[in-house]
């Protein structure tokens, strides 16, 4: 931007009031800032304030007791279990979605007739409300009349005595199935965009040198796609870490607490009325998200 433009007198505004004119960034950013302060920053500070208070269940008053909730969370086995489940869920889903997404993207990356339609169809799961996706899989995984469950019984992968969502060792897999169905297309889409942006020359050179397509994939495609993969993993990872919808709809954290994640545990505490403890747990979720994503961005040098 040239100096001349910056120095232009702002029409009709005295120098003192210049920040009100459209030449100044303030009026442009004010609405967004106001929204983010009032409904973003303030609630966070309020959550912090709440987490430093102990709730008296009888009087329903919050009494200042700064380490009560944090120590309670630290000693609460359910919190540790929820953290473990959250990490397990995020890790498994991320790996499966990334690998599947990359493979499907390679499969669909063709200019031949019909592939455009296939790619468009592949995006459809993305717009289904996650709560509805949870319902879809709840129906298909129903222990007695679900079509998926019955197919699994038929091929002997599952026994009718142990319906997948009612058994604490398989329930998480059932929930993951919904997540994988809905979000693998997200990876496919991003990987396809990455594949299509790759230059052609290195691949032609490799082919002339006699490299196989598998060699070309590991030596050329993957390294050149690292930026794209990094962005996709970061965005997906953050969303996976706060998973709530599928768990709430499909198992409601059960059976027992087998599928309880951090978000669903704080949700449960919230509905029980202990706002200070719920706030503490949600802040723990936030801290873990910030730490994990910062580490990831530093280690893999990912930048959005």
């Amino acid at each position: 931007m040239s100096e001349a433009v910056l120095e232009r007198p702002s029409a009709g505004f005295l120098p003192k009031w210049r920040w009100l004119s459209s030449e100044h960034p303030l009026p442009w950013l004010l609405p967004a800032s106001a929204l983010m302060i009032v409904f973003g920053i303030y609630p966070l500070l309020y959550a912090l304030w709440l987490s430093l208070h102990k709730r008296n269940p009888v009087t329903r008053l919050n009494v200042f007791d700064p380490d009560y909730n944090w120590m309670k969370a630290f000693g609460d086995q359910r919190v540790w279990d929820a953290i473990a489940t959250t990490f397990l869920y995020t890790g498994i889903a991320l790996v499966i979605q990334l690998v599947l997404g990359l493979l499907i993207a390679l499969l669909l990356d063709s200019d031949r007739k019909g592939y455009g339609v296939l790619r468009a169809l592949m995006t459809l799961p993305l717009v289904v409300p996650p709560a509805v996706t949870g319902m879809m899989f709840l129906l298909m995984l129903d222990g007695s009349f679900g079509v998926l469950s019955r197919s699994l019984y038929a091929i002997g992968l599952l026994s009718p005595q142990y319906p997948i969502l009612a058994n604490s060792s398989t329930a998480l897999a059932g929930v993951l199935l919904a997540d994988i169905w809905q979000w693998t297309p997200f990876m496919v889409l991003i990987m396809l965009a990455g594949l299509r942006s790759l230059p052609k020359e290195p691949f032609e050179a490799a082919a002339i040198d006699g490299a196989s397509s598998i060699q070309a994939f590991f030596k050329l495609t993957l390294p050149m796609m690292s930026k794209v993969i990094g962005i996709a993993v970061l965005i997906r990872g953050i969303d996976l870490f706060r998973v709530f919808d599928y768990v709430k709809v499909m198992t409601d954290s059960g059976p027992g607490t087998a599928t309880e994640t951090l978000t669903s545990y704080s949700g449960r505490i919230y509905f029980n009325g202990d706002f200070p403890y719920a706030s503490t747990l949600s802040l723990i979720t936030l801290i873990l998200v910030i730490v994990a994503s910062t580490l990831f961005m530093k280690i893999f040098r990912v930048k959005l």
Partner: protein
Amino acid sequence: MEQSFARRSLRDIAAVLTVAVFMFPLFWWALTSIKPMYAIFNKDEVVVFDFVPTLINYAVVLLGWSRAEIAIESGSTFGVGGTSSYDSRQTIVDSIVIAVGSTGLTIIIAVLAAYALSRMRFRGRSGFLNWVLGQRFLPPIAIIVPLVGMYKVAGMRDTDNLFLGYVGLIVIHALMNLPIAVLLLKSFFDDVPKDVDEAAMIDGATRWQTFRKVVLPMVRGGVAAAAVLCFIFSWTEFLLALFLTTIIRTVPVKITTFVTSTGSEWGFISALGTAAILPGFIFILLVQRHLVRGLTLGSLKE
């Protein structure tokens, strides 16, 4: 690379099969919505096509038919009972109000911020960008608990004041969509050469006039894409709507109330579910081109 006919056909088959696997849940869902009860709850065998299709499920959730009317219509009283309301007309209105309202609010706020972030150089610019991006990382659960408290004090819960209840949820959905809208729109503004602005301003236009009359019309496609994504995200949002509202029910929240301790009304659930998916399908096909850019907050372009 030359590929043999056999290899090509093999790939075609694999591609079609893969997509078919991903389409199956949608197909099954839509199929369930036109099944009569006996076909859904058949415990002896899975009924695929061997049933008489019916639109009763849609009549109940979209037209508000009562259970007595179903019994008369179907000539059977199988499974007719209970008092729950499956009439979802108000729910669909609620969802539309929330989604349209929050999309409008997000776009107005975001388009201003995105323009300044794309065009002006000022102190704290990158800090502001990071703030917006950080907002995207914020788990909704972290702000929802204190928000309910805030709304209670301010009398903004839907049980206090229905109008403010709508406003409350609209504002939160706008906040949720703000990062994606700002960053996406900024990437569209960045695509417009700065010479355009400078030419207009040399001709004597103010910043505002330049934005309003020259640059904004040039990113119309981008604004439409951002609006569609905001609409979809608001339409599909579950957690915030579940926690914040009791009278106002958006579709994802309403649909979960159809699961009861005495059994789930899968016919009604799948009918409302199918109806709820359709607008998203239409919209997503309209913005196919900008989808990747939107989902990666403007950092990847197709």
